[in-house]
Structures are given as structure tokens and as C-alpha cells.
């Protein structure tokens, strides 16, 4: 066993993964299930058809508490934190002073505190950043004592309501606390698959029993990180580290929808976040962007993966693929990548250079597979 393997952390569901026959891989410093015996393809299809259970306990959970928490947190992100109503969830972006992306995250107004979920590989850096910038204005409390499960798919609600009655009342991007057999849960109706579904924060000590209760439901099967990746790409969702990072701004990443009006030029609380000058200049068109994130569909059945070069039809290098695979739902190769804005319109023809050969691709709108969120 190598040193890195010895240092890998285990989630509270580690023993359960092994019992279920998972293939474990290192991910974000944790030993994580990449797939179970059913295999990636079956797990992907099962999630789209029924309900898949994911262990995402490697992700960082934290609380920002105190009367100034929302105002303080808003200084770190180009999003509207202050006006987020209690019980509502929102997507956020931590930015560098250059306006590039440190991490993407989800946060919920729990009334009196913000509950934040960040990427596993970024959590130490995020915590340090948040502490440094706003640690004097609110309590920044990591929650390593809690596991995080995701139950995703059109039948997730049928399965989860049997175990946690009342969750069916949540709608997309809302969250609430629940009690199930004396266990304190915090449940949001959201996820990373494009399907209806839930993310459930559960105390680490009760996580395995809770996961077993979900797996006992006829709709539910375990799903690994492999299918999580193919599901999120079909849903057009960014993977931090691949599609967005500290070299990309929210505008280049086509995430301007995450910047509410109130934080934009002319808004009541315009700017006031790291890199605001640059981000708003790009958003307003005062500063041109050199590249933009787009969806791509291959016109031949050749998978196009990350780091593959993109060329225009004249053979000029114009960009690179940041995520790509054969989309199991569509049975077609799909990808995300960055291209100059003049080549970002849907229908634009490009070539991806795979093993030296051009594979024709077309810029395509995302999501590749329609979202099926429950909005009530």
C-alpha cells in the first residue's frame, strides 16, 4: 500500500461501500466508491429512471452563524445572500480578487445561520479563505461530524418520504430540518444530476443506519462517483477543477445566471465582491472575454475527453475540452469546453482532435438532458 492510500480518509459509509462490493478510488483525499457491481452505465440509467443513493460525505459542510453572517458572506460572492429567504437554497461562487473562481457551493438560509456545502477537494482552502476574510464578523463552523447523502432520481421522493415523512413538501432549492427515528436531518431538494432529488445531512454516527434504511426501499440502488460525473455532465453542471477553476471568471464560465440583478451594475448592492470590477465589466460587455464555456456534441460516436484540443473548421486551435464522455442517456459523446465567444453560438461546427484525428463537434445548448426538478 502506498503512502497516499494510507493517508486517505474514510467516510462514515466506508464499511457499507465495501459490503456492497464497491470499487474504491482516491477522490478529494477520501477513499470513495467509483462504482458498485452493477457498473456505471446501469447506475446512471437507474438514477434517471428510479432513485440512486450517493455518498457525498467528502464534501465540506459548514455553518456561518451570527447576525452579520449573511452580510459578511455576501462580500465573498457575486450573489444575493442577504435577501435569500429562510428555507431557501442558492448556488454561490467564492471569487479571488481577480474575479476567478475559488469554488462553487450551495448555501441555505436556515434562519439565524447559513448552511454551506462546498466541494471536497476545496474545503480546507475554502475554510481558510472564509476565516481570513470574514472570520471576525461571524462564526465559521466546519461540520466534520456530519455525513452527506444524495438521493436522486424521479422516484427519490417516493422512497425518501417513507423514511422521512414530510420531505415531499419541499420544492427545488429549498431545505428544512427533519427528525427520522430520533435522528436530526437537514434535507434540501437539490442535487447534481439534473433530476428531482434530495441532499441529506445526517450525523456521522447515524449515517450508515440511515443509508441502509434508504437502500431498503425498492426504488433505491447505490450509485458511485463515476455515474455522478456522467449524470452531472448530461445536466450541464460544472465540475470544479475541470470546467471552472482559479483561471476562469463566472462570465467566461457562462455562470452569469448565478449573479442576481441586485449585485449587477445598477443594482441596489452592485459590486462589493472580490474581483467585482472585472466580473461586472465582463458582464456588461465593457471588457471582452477571450473564451466562453460551451456544450459540445460529437457528430461521430467517438468519446471526446478533457484536455482534447478544439480547432475551428480551418484547423486553427481555438480552445480545449474540460469535461467529456459518452453520455449514457443520449448514447452520444458530449463535452464542455472553452472557445472564443464568436464560436460559442449553438450550431457552430468545430473539430476535436482525438489521437491526432479530427472528430466533428457542434456547439449545443445545455443541459444535454432536460432537467426534471420539482418546482411544486
Amino acid at each position, binding site marked *: 500500500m502506498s503512502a497516499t492510500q494510507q493517508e486517505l480518509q474514510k467516510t462514515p459509509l466506508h464499511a457499507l461501500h465495501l459490503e456492497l462490493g464497491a470499487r474504491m478510488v482516491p477522490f478529494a483525499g477520501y477513499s470513495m466508491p467509483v462504482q458498485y457491481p452493477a457498473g*456505471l*452505465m446501469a447506475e446512471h440509467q437507474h438514477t434517471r429512471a428510479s432513485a440512486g443513493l450517493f455518498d457525498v460525505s467528502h464534501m465540506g459542510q459548514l455553518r456561518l452563524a451570527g447576525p452579520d453572517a449573511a452580510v459578511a458572506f455576501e462580500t465573498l460572492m457575486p450573489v444575493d445572500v442577504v435577501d435569500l429567504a429562510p428555507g431557501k437554497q442558492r448556488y454561490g461562487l467564492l471569487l479571488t480578487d481577480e474575479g476567478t473562481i475559488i469554488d462553487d457551493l450551495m448555501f441555505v438560509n436556515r434562519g439565524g445561520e447559513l448552511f454551506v456545502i462546498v466541494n471536497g477537494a476545496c474545503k480546507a482552502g475554502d475554510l481558510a479563505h472564509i476565516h481570513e476574510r470574514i472570520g471576525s464578523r461571524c462564526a465559521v463552523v466546519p461540520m466534520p461530524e456530519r455525513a452527506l447523502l444524495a438521493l436522486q432520481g424521479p422516484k427519490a421522493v417516493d422512497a425518501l418520504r417513507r423514511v422521512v415523512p414530510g420531505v415531499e413538501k419541499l420544492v427545488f432549492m429549498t431545505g428544512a430540518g427533519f427528525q427520522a427515528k430520533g435522528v436530526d436531518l437537514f434535507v434540501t431538494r437539490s442535487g447534481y444530476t439534473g433530476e428531482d432529488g434530495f441532499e441529506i445531512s445526517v450525523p456521522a454516527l447515524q449515517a450508515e443506519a440511515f443509508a441502509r434504511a434508504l437502500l431498503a426501499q425498492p426504488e433505491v440502488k447505490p450509485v458511485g462517483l463515476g455515474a455522478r460525473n456522467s449524470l452531472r455532465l448530461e445536466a450541464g453542471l460544472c465540475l470544479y477543477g475541470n470546467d471552472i477553476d482559479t483561471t476562469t471568471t463566472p462570465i467566461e464560465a457562462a455562470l452569469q445566471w448565478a449573479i442576481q440583478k441586485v449585485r449587477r451594475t445598477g443594482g441596489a448592492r452592485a459590486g462589493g465582491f472580490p474581483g467585482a470590477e472585472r466580473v461586472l465589466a465582463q458582464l456588461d460587455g465593457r471588457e471582452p472575454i477571450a473564451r466562453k464555456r460551451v456544450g459540445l456534441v460529437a457528430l461521430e460516436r467517438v*468519446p471526446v475527453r478533457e484536455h482534447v484540443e478544439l480547432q475551428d473548421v480551418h484547423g486553427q486551435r481555438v480552445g480545449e475540452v474540460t469535461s467529456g464522455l459518452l453520455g449514457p442517456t443520449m448514447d452520444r459523446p458530449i463535452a464542455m469546453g472553452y472557445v472564443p465567444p464568436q464560436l460559442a453560438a449553438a450550431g457552430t461546427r468545430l473539430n476535436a482532435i482525438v489521437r491526432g484525428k479530427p472528430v466533428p463537434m457542434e456547439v449545443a445548448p445545455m443541459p444535454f438532458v432536460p432537467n426534471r426538478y420539482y418546482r411544486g
Partner: protein
Amino acid sequence: MTVKYTPEHEWIQLEDHEYAVVGITLHAQDALGDVVFVDLPEVGRTYAKGEQAGVVESVKAAADVYMPIAGEVSEVNEDLRVDPSLANKDPLGAGWFFKILIKDMAEFDALMDEPEYAKFVQANK
């Protein structure tokens, strides 16, 4: 029929005294997961031992397929191109990749036999 194995997880089986069939091992297809794409070598072209002769891809990963020994490609499995999942369902049979005209039988003889390959897989787990 004699079957030999490479450290890159290809198998090669003699068809007769001149020709051999090449595919990926049970272990290789299991490690890759659901195979969704294969790229096969050019028929009529001669490849050196160890030269890249194809590609096999699952949703999550891509791997090169190498020429186990030097030889000229005489046939490729067009069925596999159409249904890459044959590499999972029947890796040692219907999921074969290509056939070659062997250049030097000594190269074949030098490859691992079944017990040696089993040991190799175990040691590299």
C-alpha cells in the same frame, strides 16, 4: 490453443502456426467498466511489438491497446466496433479486437502464460 498475456492486459491466442487473435483480458475489461468505444488498427499495416494498435474506452476511462508482438494486422473485429460491449460480455471470445500475421514466434513464446499472468494481476492489485 495456446494463450499468452501481456503486462498491458492483452491476451493473444494462436490460431494456427502463423496467425494469432488479440483481445483485452477479463481483468482489463473489469477495470475499465462498461466499454462504449473501440478504435481498431489498420488492416494490412505492420506494427512493432508494443506499438499502440487500438483504443478501448469506457464512460470513465480510455486505455490504449498495444501490439503484444510484432505482426501485420490481417483482420479487425467489425462486430466489436458496432457493439463495444462485447469486450465486457465476452472478452476472450466474441469481444476479440484484431488478428495478426506473426512475425517472430519467439516473441510470442516469451509472453506470460495463464498462471504467470494471474500472479502478475494479483501482485499489481
